[in-house]
């Protein structure tokens, strides 16, 4: 079974996303900010990461850049999932190594469609 790390400072969003992604036959792990996510990735590199942008301690874009410099850090498929939905933010995310981008609010169909777009399911 593949696993997905869900990185968001909102516990509610993590819980909702986790339920959706488990229904797509993933194991899920959670982190509340970029720093915690990076620690978890160093322990075990996940197959996929669902990543919020604005978080305390370390935000999503800084986490993504740090992740891509880690050993095996290019392996996980990274899907941004954020309120930032203007083309500038989306372009910056892609340039920084994001594979897909979900604009909040999202639902199960969007997550499924995006996971399918990048071949996770």
């Amino acid at each position, binding site marked *: 079974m593949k696993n997905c790390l869900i990185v968001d400072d909102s516990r509610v969003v993590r819980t909702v996303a986790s339920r959706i992604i488990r229904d797509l036959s993933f194991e899920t792990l959670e982190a509340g900010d970029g720093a915690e996510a990076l620690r978890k990735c160093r322990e075990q590199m996940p197959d996929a990461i669902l990543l919020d942008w604005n978080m305390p301690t370390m935000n999503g874009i800084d986490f993504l850049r740090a992740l891509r410099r880690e050993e095996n850090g290019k392996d996980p498929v990274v899907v941004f999932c954020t309120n930032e*939905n*203007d*083309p500038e933010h*989306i372009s910056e995310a892609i340039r920084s190594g994001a594979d*897909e981008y979900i*604009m909040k609010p999202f*639902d199960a*169909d*969007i997550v499924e*469609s995006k996971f399918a777009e990048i071949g996770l399911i």
Partner: protein
Amino acid sequence: MQDTTFNEIADLALRLTGQVIQPSKSYLVKSRLAAICRRESFSSLDDLAHCIKSRPNPRFEKEVAAALTSKQTSFFGDRDLLERIVTHALPHRLKASKTGRLRVWCAGVATGQEAYSLALRLSEEAVPALKGAEIEIVGTDISPDCIQVAEAGTYGHFDVQKGLSIHRLMLNFSRQDTGDWRISQKLRDTVSFRLHNLLEDASSLGQFDVILCRNVLSQIAPSLHARVAQNLANQLLPGALLMAGRGESLTGLLEDLEPSRDVRGAYIRKSKSGAVAA
């Protein structure tokens, strides 16, 4: 909603659009007619049904029937079928074309995503077998509201996140101040939309090289399938291809349709007996 109201509305839909609405789907009637009820200040569907009965108004009946059809669609809803059109059906037709001009009809296109998906796919990478082709895409639907959305090419946050990768979204759409996303002028220019009821003759649309009719027959009463198929088949150029959606077989519907030997899942009109193949 009273049972008689449901029956009257379901009869209206069947009569004007061929659509079958099962009693178990009465919630669809409520949600699809909500906007009309609000606009006309009907307190309930019973009021609406009463109005239709007591003051017959063909234009209003048509509007109600159109509002009842399914608007469900998405970008790249059937990728396999779109790929077959791009890599097989259109190249096959181009070989037979003298002018290089090909016409595609997306019949029952709702808010236009399927027509735009085809246009988008054709714009992305040059298909060698389509070199020199000039492809016109026409989308039709019975609902004026749908045609309006399709012509504007403007889609909401949820629509553009289903079936479109973020790369396709960024390359082909621009974000509007409303938060909606609008498909590029370049793609809008390759697609046109027309109001059309598939129960009616379509000769005003002209003849086509490929006709795509997905998720339409499955909504329509089986007794009307042959009539719809005939209306579609009448607009096929000689040797042109008619394609339906997954699980919507046209086999056995019409005497003069037969499966294409060249493109999987497509149908062509049988050449008339005695006619000499060109």
